[in-house]
């Protein structure tokens, strides 16, 4: 049995996703929109799957959303997070029209209900990387 090294996994921004990660660092949720048909898409990618345009722009989105579902991780996928377990991972229907999967902090999982309002928060991890988490709105 070989235990995974307890290093915090960090995102590796791509050409497509760079504006999203830069947005988080600046305290904004930047989402990719198609320039032609205007539809939002997430995660960032080169082509709009609705109209096939390759022209896109990133726009700041509302930080509010509603709880779609959740889990409580007791046995983390990456053992770096073992010290934090158990922790809630929430899947949220953002009012901006996409879903975000991120930790939900400051609430007991027994209190959770589908549809509960939550708000996106920002957690700086390194000088370059900020990751999102949720709090009850």
């Amino acid at each position, binding site marked *: *049995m*070989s235990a*995974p090294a307890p290093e915090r*996994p960090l*995102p590796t921004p791509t050409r497509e996703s760079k504006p999203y990660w830069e947005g988080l660092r600046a305290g904004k949720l930047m989402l990719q929109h198609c320039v032609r048909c205007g539809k939002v898409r*997430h*995660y960032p990618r080169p082509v709009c799957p609705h109209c096939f345009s390759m022209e896109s722009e990133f726009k700041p989105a509302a930080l509010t959303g509603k709880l*779609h*579902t*959740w*889990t*409580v*991780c*007791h*046995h983390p*996928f*990456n053992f770096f997070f073992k010290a934090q377990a*158990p922790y809630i*991972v929430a*899947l949220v229907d953002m009012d901006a029209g*996409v*879903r*975000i*999967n991120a930790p939900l902090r400051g609430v007991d*999982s027994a209190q959770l*209900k*589908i549809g509960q309002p939550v708000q996106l928060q920002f957690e700086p991890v390194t000088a370059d990387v900020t990751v999102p988490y949720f709090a009850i709105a």
Partner: protein
Amino acid sequence: MAHALREKAAVSGIGETAYTRGTEKSGLALQLEASLKAIADAGLSPRDIDGVVPYFPGGGIAEDFIANLGLTDLALSLFVPMGGATCVAAIQSAAMAVATGVCKHVLISVGRTGYSGARVSTRLQQFPQFALAAEFEAPIAQGARRHMELYGTTPRHFAEIAVTTRQHAILNGNVVMNKPLTVEEHHASRMIADPFRLFDCSLESDGGAAIVISAADRARALKKPLVTIMGVAEGHPESPASIAQRPDLLDFGLVKAARRGYAMAGVGPKDIDVAEIYDCFTFTVIRQLEILGFCKTGEGGPFVMDGRIGINGDLPLNTHGGLLSQGHVVGLNHVIELTRQLRREAGRAQVKDAEVGLVTGYGDMGDGSLAILRRAA
């Protein structure tokens, strides 16, 4: 008009190693050991194999099969990178190859040191999908939680699957988990990713499995009772790399595969005598039973109760113990068990008069696959 591929191909050979936790053998050696057994089971020589679909990633590649089995004229080498949906989806590719005459006998094989070697988390991170959206464990448990909140599914339903398939594993004998499991022990096992407890999660184990797919007319002349492929299909969900963005978290690729697989087979859920359902988690069985039309959405929990999925139940399920109790060779053991049932070679776990059976695969971010096999002998 019948589908062009219906019953044109057959599962002609099956082979598996011992399923263990702990081995001195490499994944490749386990894969080749199972392959040799499957080829011998069909009554073929390794030199008869002219197509290979090795499980990817991990294990052997075409070059290994040529070098070890002395293949002289390999006509087809494929990977089907669909995680747990791979093995059943590979049957579709193999069936197309033998039905069209591109190949005579295609070998589908898996070898894994999932306990002794790299753990499953390592394997998952090798998947190309992982580079797109590094989410995995959470969305599946989240899907189960949503099902519980919307439909009242409970851990008692999950436990029924774990406990019943453990009984089946004990009947099989070549299994990792060979002690009875009670509902109380299930409920007392440690939480992994709520609502999944330890006994809701499939095993990390060592082992190899292989099958041979041959044209039906060729297979008829071989050693074992003929088991034909009535229907087979793979399906890919919307938002395949990111479960989070999928319009309905509970719609897997199996929704699409089931539609096409049933249509090809010309049968429906009522015609199925035995089902081997991909059981990476207990809950994924419940949801697949709904998708497959054995019950309505939301009714999968109550459906599995009251002995229905036992050997003598209305729908005997995972009659070998599955990934939860037999071993994790990415579901190729499910195909092997279904073939064994239809040949009437399942020993103490034999489902009486099994004629038609169904097997599914469920992989990674929600890919799905389904095959419907028939005892044609």
